[in-house]
């Protein structure tokens, strides 16, 4: 809108031509979107970060004479059900507009039979003070106790003398040492004894199952079996050699590949059926002898176990000598347990004493940081409403990594085939549309599928083998049919390919149409063979026979596979786009150098598509990390006793259930017995989840930036 131009022509460009109102609308929409994001992130950040800041302890004396300690949470104006007379004793009991105020106190002390939170209308309060000896005590059970520490006890006797914070802290430190000792015993020797007992029992059970199954079946002598096996191997190699020689010049490559695949397949079958290292089942006397040996060993282990338990009991008895007398504002004692309400509680029941009324900012900051450290690094306690979320973070990260490991190769390979090899036609379009539609399927559907297919079908197969195995002979016919179908499909697909530069003949078209069906039949036959093989009896039959399936139930492996399925469309679409964005000139350059399509894809196309593929992976991982609904069905639990990775064999326990942040947030906020107390934790856990997703994205973003810089074209 140059002024001179407008003067010289006598016309003005209308505002609408510049699109000014439209631009303002766009800016407004962006501003609204940004505002919502800032609000969300701001709320999560603010609430999440403020949870662990220690609040002061107030001593409230009500007009009725009742006294109570509480941690003020927030103050708000309210409309009382009955209009309140007077303005109360406190100047701050009403707000500027004359409405009465009330304050939410966290009063804790649930074991004294009261609600942990309480609204107090300020007009009912006679006085509010902050006595310096009032403390908030975090306990291992029953949550917070707000009160006053009166004395330490030993063997039921009060320890006389000055009671400062140092003495209390020292007593807590010593109690922590004792608890640490017990924990080390339980986690170390006791746990390994447990495992050994378990493996002994399972080993014996597996022997028994084998003996039942193989009763009356006699295997051939080992020498004969080795001989047969070597003969089979040699036969396959010979056939392969002949096939390679019989294949012409142009098709030699395909024939060779086919031969290799057949070799691999036959080897697998050989391993499944005739492996020479198979052992005969134990007969009844041998089994009995074995049972006796195991029984002896078990008795020895159990004696050791008892000894350990006794040691732990001794430490506990020692621990029970040290108590602490804590009273609330009414003078009621903090009890040891519901069963013994008159005993003072043990020092070892205390996690931390927060003296927020005395001490400066640095003391509070120390408590704040200690609470964060506990939150991030410790295990949860008191049905998740206290303690840390370390297993939850760990479970989430492991799940996301497993998901990435599962989805990356699958998605990339599928996309490469779809884009580079599949003939672009109606069928490929259909596949592409279906993949896109999969992205819109509600995630709970994937959860149901994962539970039904992965856990209850695949998992059960891994555990116990096929539920209805066939007889050996018909099964071999099935395998033969499958082999014929595979061979036929390979031969047909070779025959259906025209020489380059030539048109496909009618016969080739027919073969091309049929080849898909033959492949389908081959895959169906192979699946049927796997599902009915009489030679596979499961890897964990002993445990499954006791009603505790290993893989046949919810677990982190199935959860990550379900999520991989869920995020597959994202990866496929992103990879396809990245692949098609690789310039044609690069491919032609590579082909011009004499590279095959395969080499071009692996050396030029995939590296060039790297950043785009990585973007898809970021999206998939972020979505997977934040998913909750399917996880509730396939493996996330409220409390997992053990982590999915550990120092004991086999290190990755893919069968274990796990904790997940998204599910944890739901559980804390809506399923916990003390939802109000957990509210702060919900915010903090949300903050952690957002930070994890953010960190994942950021790392992938940086990685992508580096890749892209490497691929950046300059000059022309």
């Amino acid at each position: 809108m140059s002024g001179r131009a407008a003067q010289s022509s006598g016309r003005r460009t209308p505002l609408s031509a510049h699109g000014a109102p439209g631009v303002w609308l766009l800016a407004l929409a962006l501003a609204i979107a940004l505002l919502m994001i800032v609000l969300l992130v701001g709320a999560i950040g603010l609430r999440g970060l403020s949870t662990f800041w220690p609040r002061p302890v107030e001593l409230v004396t009500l007009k009725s004479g009742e006294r109570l300690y509480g941690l003020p949470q927030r103050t708000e104006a309210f409309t009382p059900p009955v209009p309140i007379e007077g303005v109360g004793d406190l100047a701050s009991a009403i707000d500027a507009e004359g409405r009465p105020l009330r304050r939410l106190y966290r009063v804790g002390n649930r074991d004294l039979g009261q609600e942990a939170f309480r609204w107090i209308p300020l007009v009912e309060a006679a006085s509010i003070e902050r006595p310096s000896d009032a403390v908030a005590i975090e306990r291992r059970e029953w949550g917070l106790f707000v009160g006053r520490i009166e004395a330490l006890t030993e063997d039921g006797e009060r320890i006389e003398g000055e009671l400062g914070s140092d003495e209390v802290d020292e007593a807590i430190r010593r109690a922590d040492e004792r608890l640490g000792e017990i924990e080390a015993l339980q986690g170390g020797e006791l746990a390994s004894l447990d495992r050994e007992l378990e493996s002994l029992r399972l080993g014996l059970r597996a022997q028994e199952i084998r003996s039942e199954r193989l009763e009356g079946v006699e295997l051939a002598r080992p020498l004969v079996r080795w001989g047969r096996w070597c003969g089979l191997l040699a036969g396959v190699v010979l056939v392969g050699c002949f096939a390679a020689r019989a294949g012409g010049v142009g098709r030699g490559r395909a024939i060779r590949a086919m031969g290799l695949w057949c070799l691999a397949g036959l080897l697998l079958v050989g391993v499944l059926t005739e492996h020479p290292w198979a052992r005969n089942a134990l007969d009844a006397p041998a089994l009995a002898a074995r049972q006796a040996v195991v029984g002896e060993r078990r008795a020895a282990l159990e004696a050791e176990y008892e000894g350990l338990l006794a040691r732990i009991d001794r430490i506990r008895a020692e621990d029970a000598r040290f108590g602490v007398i804590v009273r609330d504002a009414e003078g009621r004692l903090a009890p040891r347990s519901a069963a013994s309400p008159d005993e003072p509680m043990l020092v070892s029941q205390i996690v931390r004493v927060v003296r927020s009324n005395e001490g400066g900012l640095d003391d509070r900051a120390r408590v704040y940081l200690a609470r964060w450290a506990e939150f991030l690094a410790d295990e949860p306690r008191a049905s998740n409403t206290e303690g840390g979320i370390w297993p939850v973070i760990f479970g989430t990260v492991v799940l996301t990594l497993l998901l990435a490991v599962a989805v990356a190769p699958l998605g990339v390979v599928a996309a490469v085939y779809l884009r580079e090899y599949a003939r672009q036609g109606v069928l490929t379009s259909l596949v592409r549309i279906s993949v896109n539609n999969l992205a819109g399927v509600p995630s709970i559907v994937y959860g149901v599928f994962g539970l039904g297919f992965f856990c209850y079908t695949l998992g059960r197969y891994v555990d116990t083998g096929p539920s209805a195995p066939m007889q050996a002979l018909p099964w071999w016919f099935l395998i033969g049919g499958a082999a014929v179908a595979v061979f036929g499909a390979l031969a047909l697909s070779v025959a259906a390919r025209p020489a380059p530069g030539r048109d496909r003949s009618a016969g080739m078209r027919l073969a091309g149409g049929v080849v898909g069906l033959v492949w389908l039949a081959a895959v169906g036959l192979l699946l049927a063979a796997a599902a009915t093989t009489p030679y596979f009896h499961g890897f964990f039959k002993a445990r499954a026979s006791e009603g505790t399936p290993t893989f046949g139930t919810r677990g982190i492996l199935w959860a990550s596979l379900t999520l991989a399925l869920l995020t597959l469309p994202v990866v496929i679409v992103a990879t396809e786009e990245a692949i098609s964005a690789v310039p044609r000139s690069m491919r032609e350059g590579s082909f011009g150098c004499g590279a095959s399509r395969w080499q071009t894809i692996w050396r030029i196309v995939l590296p060039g598509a790297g950043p785009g593929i990585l973007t898809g992976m970021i999206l998939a991982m972020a979505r997977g990390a934040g998913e909750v609904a399917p996880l509730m069905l396939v493996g996330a639990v409220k409390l997992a006793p053990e982590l999915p990775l550990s120092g004991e064999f086999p290190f990755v326990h893919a069968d274990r259930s796990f904790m997940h942040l998204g599910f944890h947030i739901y559980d804390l906020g809506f399923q916990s017995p003390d939802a109000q107390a957990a509210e702060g934790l919900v915010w903090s856990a949300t903050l952690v989840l957002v930070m994890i997703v953010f960190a994942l994205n950021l790392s992938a973003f940086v990685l992508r930036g580096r890749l892209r810089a490497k691929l950046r074209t300059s000059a022309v």
Partner: protein
Amino acid sequence: MSQVSAVTSNRAAASDPAERYRLIEEIRRGGVPTAEIHDEVRRHEPVLEVQAFRLWYGGAQALFDVSMGAPRGKVTAIIGPSGCGKSTLLRSVNRLNDLIDGVRVEGDMTLNGASIYGPGVDVIDLRKRLGMVFQKPNPFPMSIFENVVYPLRIDGERRRSVLQEACERALTGAAIWNEVKDRLKESALGLSGGQQQRLCIARAIVADPEVLLLDEPCSALDPIATLRVEELIAEISQRYTVLIVTHNMQQAARVSDFTAFMYLGRLVEFGPTSAIFQNPRLAETEEYVTGRFG
């Protein structure tokens, strides 16, 4: 060039306008006139021979009965207006057109006597015997070294010493060794356009091709880079047979020994460059090379 046009314009002006475009008119009507091939061409032994080659993109025919031979050890230029099929012909030599859906061919070509389109030809092996340089420089997103030895790598060569020696030889051959010898590990994408194109030439000659195919190698370059690449082509032609497609007639005149003129998928005239530019047999060729038609 101005000299050339001064000499030839007289003849063109003298002939009858209706008669002048006889051949062009025939081609436009869909006819396939016999190409005018000079005898000098026949005196040379062809390393690459095109025999009645026809090509269709789907239903549209792009090449009509093209028959010509590229003499051994010479530079043969293919000129012609846009869309005349010269690039298609070049890309048919190493069968890059196979990659395009719906391409169909008839006729054959031979490379050193061996059929290119016959049954059982290993296309990958064929392409390894030919080097190709494209219109737009297309170095791969890798280091300069990896770019040059790419054809050897895909051939399975892993010995470091062999690769290094081949790399130096090819880069020296492409007259770029002195510029990049200290930065072989750096990305090839950081080079200038002209350097990238010479790098692509190095990549094309690293495996000692039997024929070097250049598809308008200078059309994306500035004049100075063009000059250097042309010098390079002149140098390379002492060792390799070169087939170059260009729409720049000065370039054809400068670098080539033989020139083929194509129009609408037909070969029109093929002869020694000097004859084509100074004394063409057909008026159409003359009109085209002097820039009055096309």
